[in-house]
């Protein structure tokens, strides 16, 4: 039964293409810094300089994490790239959106790494947004069963 469950989980991961998670250091500090500048220019007017949102505009912290948990980053990237900024949707380059996404990850306490977040949909699809750090034993266990 347990074996079947793990196989099912692995199948889901394979189907979604997710091989890494937001806790695996998927952006760099320098990229987040660039994204922070862009955020203040392009996003802060509505979402607030501190990402807290307003009565009308959703926050990009707090509930932001559970809202996006389980999605892969290409979905989040696609949403930001096509729907935002609300008054000029789709006006930012892919590189700029990747930087902003890196800033959002940092602002939500996901750790930085050594490789920049890619703007490629294929690469982003391989990264899962996990609101909570997955228990460390999950991956090794899967490997053992494999």
């Amino acid at each position, binding site marked *: 039964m347990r074996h079947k469950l793990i196989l099912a989980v692995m199948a889901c991961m394979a189907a979604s293409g997710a091989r890494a998670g937001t806790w695996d250091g998927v952006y760099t500090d320098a990229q987040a810094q660039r994204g922070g500048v862009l955020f203040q220019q392009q996003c802060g007017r*509505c979402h607030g300089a501190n990402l807290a949102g307003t009565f*009308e505009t*959703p926050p990009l912290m707090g509930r932001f994490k559970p*809202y996006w948990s389980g*999605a892969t980053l290409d979905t989040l990237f696609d949403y930001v790239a*096509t*729907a935002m900024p*609300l*008054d000029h949707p789709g006006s930012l380059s892919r590189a700029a959106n990747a930087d902003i996404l890196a800033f959002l990850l940092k602002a939500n306490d996901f750790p930085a790494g050594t490789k920049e977040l890619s703007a490629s949909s294929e690469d982003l699809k391989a990264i899962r947004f996990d609101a909570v750090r997955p228990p460390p034993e999950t991956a090794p266990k899967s490997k053992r069963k494999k």
Partner: protein
Amino acid sequence: MDRRYLLKNSLALGGLVGLGGCATHPPSPPPKAVSSIPIEDRVPHLAPIRAHTDRLFDIKVCIRPFRTKGPNLDVEQIGDAMVVHNYGHGGSGWSLSWGSANMAVQKAMSASPKQIAVIGCGIIGLTSALTAQRAGAQVTIYTRELLPRTRSVRANGSWTPDSRISLASEAPSNFGATWEEMARMSWKTLRSYLGLPGNPVTFTDHYRLSDQPFGQPTPRDPAIPPLPPPSWTGLPEKSSDFGEYADRIADLTPKPQILTEDNNPFPVKYASRSTQMFFNFTEYGQLLMSNFYAAGGKIVIRDFHSPNELADLPEKVIINCPGFAARDWWKDKAMVPVRGQTGWLIPQPEVNYAMTYRNVQILSKSDGIMVIALEDGDMKGYNNSDESVRRAESERAVRVIEELFSRFPTNPA
């Protein structure tokens, strides 16, 4: 005709003026003209509006979920789930909600589900949920926002069933009939919310004032910035490019009455009176939420990112009411944002009327006196998704009304 008599007596200019008049002057003789006006048609005493910019205590901006083809009520399959769409009601959501919900629920119930999921908790989602409950389903609403914070509550909230509901050239040929069915069903359903404590749904008189004879356009204030050039190609180019269907239900509401000079309490040359149904957001919203919970409804706070996620819900029949979010979530290219802004003056319960003058509309509600700038008609805000507040726009509108009331005589010495 004694103009001052009318001003003082038809428009109650506050207690002090009235009392002062009684105490220091002999009673004025009844004006002859009044006797020619049937008693039921005389304009009653109207309280003045304290229209001052420092009383603007809230400004709300919304994006109307306009859909060029008219609302989407299509059915589609996502995995093993049947999704019935119910979005894209432009500036007519509050008005058409019950009728649209009825259509959506009929489609949903054709699959005989015990459970139904509703996506979204704006006015379309809530009425869909309640209608599904009344059809016998157990309903869960999945939403990222609850009613007080949804875009619905940033709307006008009046009976405006054909306000930016379609582009005439884009709507299906049978849309007029569909619209009429929706509007009539809504009207009948809204009857059951009249007369309740707090007046969730109610009527008011609406005075339309003009410096020009009716039928002539109201001049545009040259101080108002012109509309930016269109950021789209093709239609709409003008207000009349939007679908207009109100004639189909003209039998539901009384005709406007032209107020003769001796029955016009306002210091403007031309005035008419019509009747306006409107919604008090707080009372109506809370009532609908209470009704939903009382019927066993459940709310799940959740954001969806792609249509495929709907297939994972336990409910296999889903009524989809995302409003403007459909543009990005469902990649619906027929969705166009139409910006709207309402200013809110501190409530004055004694003011029980609506008014339109010089392209500014006023509507007194339980939670404030709404002030809207109407210049440029239906073209205003088209394809504009900027939800930031423009205070100057609301202040300018307030000043129009402030100036109107400044024309009344001040308290006699």
